[in-house]
């Protein structure tokens, strides 16, 4: 029996748009619409989608940087959707997040050491041996003691992201949300960081939610994958299965659109027409209807049902329903 570390159920987030003379809510940005997914122990779950797909918002909701409009977040069997105060602090010792831009996610006026020690002090961990623990953390992410004395701008991009990872690990979490962890890094450094994440998972069996737009990274690192479009999940499957046998027209188009660095490979590309719909329109039917090459009447009327294709492969498309 696999244990689910995090499970989100029917998660919805609508950001109000205020306007008008009285600054009342005149509409919503429908960022996340009814997303259900789970991350298992020791597993990496990839959440893939383009800008505006709502993937980052899902991550921010899970670490409780923002509250969902509706839906539930269950962590280790406990509903933590509305936790506050001490309970929230406890939750945040088990859940951490790594952001896209490592430079922006570090306080530019704090050394690595003071950043790490601050965390330990707040959670009263390793009293008396904070420094030793900080050194150990640095070694764990492939850096040395001397880097403790550096300011963020004295580190390279890859080193910064390692430090950010070390800081997330400092509270000894079970689960880490990785929001585009390598998007700001160069390819040669990205590989180092991805391998570090893999290695850490192997050793300490962390669970990851990997948010990215990069399918290649998903393929390399994640065990299961959910594809999002316009705040709706459209397909979810074990990664290998997804790449072998994509079912949703959007997933298929996305995979075909990714350029492959093999000039001998000649493929017919599926070029989608149009652009993602405006997020201020409420999603009532299939969000992909306007760009889908196979669109049918029913797609414009009703949300497609969750169709189970077996071997944990679920898709939301009227073609497969």
């Amino acid at each position, binding site marked *: 029996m696999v244990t689910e570390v995090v499970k989100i159920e029917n998660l919805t987030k609508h950001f109000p748009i205020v*306007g*008008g*003379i*009285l*600054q009342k809510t005149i509409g919503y940005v429908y960022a996340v619409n009814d997303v259900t997914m789970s991350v298992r122990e020791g597993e990496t779950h990839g959440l893939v989608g383009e800008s505006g797909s709502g993937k980052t918002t899902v991550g921010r909701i899970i670490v409780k940087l923002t509250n969902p409009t509706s839906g539930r977040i269950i962590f280790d069997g406990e509903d933590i959707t509305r936790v506050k105060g001490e309970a929230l602090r406890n939750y945040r010792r088990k859940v951490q997040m790594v952001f896209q831009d490592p430079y922006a996610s570090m306080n530019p006026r704090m050394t690595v050491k003071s950043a790490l020690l601050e965390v330990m002090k707040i959670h009263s961990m390793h009293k008396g041996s904070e420094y030793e623990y900080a050194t150990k953390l640095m070694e764990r992410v492939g850096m040395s003691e001397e880097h403790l004395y550096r300011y963020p701008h004295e580190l390279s991009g890859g080193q910064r992201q390692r430090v950010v990872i070390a800081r997330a690990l400092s509270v000894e979490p079970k689960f880490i949300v990785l929001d585009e962890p390598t998007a700001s890094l160069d390819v040669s450094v990205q590989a180092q960081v991805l391998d570090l994440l893999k290695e850490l998972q192997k050793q300490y069996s962390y669970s990851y939610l990997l948010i990215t737009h990069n399918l290649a990274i998903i393929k390399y690192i994640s065990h299961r994958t959910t594809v999002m479009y316009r705040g709706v999940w459209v397909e979810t499957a074990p990664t290998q299965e997804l790449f072998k046998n994509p079912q949703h027209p959007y997933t298929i188009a996305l995979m075909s659109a990714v350029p492959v660095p093999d000039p001998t490979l000649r493929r017919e590309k599926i070029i989608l027409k149009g652009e993602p719909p405006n997020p201020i329109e409420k999603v009532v039917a299939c969000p992909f209807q306007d760009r889908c090459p196979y669109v049918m009447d029913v797609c414009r009327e009703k949300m497609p049902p969750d169709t189970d294709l077996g071997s944990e492969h679920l898709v939301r498309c009227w073609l497969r329903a």
Partner: protein
Amino acid sequence: MKLYEYSIRRIFLLIFVLLGVTILTFYLSRIVLNPLGAYVTERTRPEAIPAIEKRLGLDKPFYIQYIIYLQDLVTFNWGWSRVAHMPVIEALFYRFPATVELAIASFIIIILVGVPLGIISALKNNSVVDHAIRIFSLTGISIPVFWLALTLQYSFSYLPKVAGLPSLPSNGRVDALLYQQYPVNRITGLMIFDSLIQGNFIIASDALLHLILPAMTLAFLSIGAVTRVARSSMLEVLRQDYISTARAYGLPERMVIYKYALKNAMIPVTTLSGLLFGGLLAGAIITESIFAFPGMGQLTVFAISSNDSYTIMAFTVLASFIYVLINLLVDIVYAKLDPRIKY
């Protein structure tokens, strides 16, 4: 949100601000100051004081007093000005056009000199010209008003007069004798405008001469600010990517700078100029008083020296109302100028 909605919302908020302003001035004038001051002298019999208090509503609770205060404000019943020997409101409105005239004159100089200097400074970044303009504008914002005014008065009016050279007038709005000879009917109260439409060029030119020194004084203090903003925003814009686009697509350099960059760079300058104009309209207290220019500011300085609190407070309220209104206009113009603005 549409522009008009934004404007209405801003006006709506303005009401709160103005209410706040009146609470503050009410507090200052009724609670901290002795409101009886204007009505009680040494010769007033002590037993008469309660009657005066009653007449002024001072025996009532504060909130009622405040409502009376507001009523008085709205009905322009602003009290008696001891220094002007007339109701405060009349004194202020009588003097307002002079202030407007001075404000317009100095504003024209500020824009005509400040903006070009800023742009030259930006285009010749780090050259000798740039440094010279930088010093000039920093000096402008470092100079005490009264000192500049008096120095100008001394060197362009007093010294030439003593030496028997032609000199600039440094007192009042117009030569009193000349004015008696060629009187002008008061229409708008803007002397140059009034005399021009009445074909009275003698007074028009004399009034213009009287404006030169005070307008130069006010202008010099603000040119620096305009120049600095124009310079830095022009430099900022020239660094932007869309300037590279214009160049990369073969537009001539003149057009890149004077059409594409300038419009962007002028947005912050417009905002600042608006605020400066608001400040000028709200009264150039020191300058007016030194050049005996009969605007609201001069009246206020008189009021200060004779402890005329009604006049001071009335001026404070009026000045802030004008200032707030101009600010509002500036914000609306800004929203209009920059299509990106989100309200």
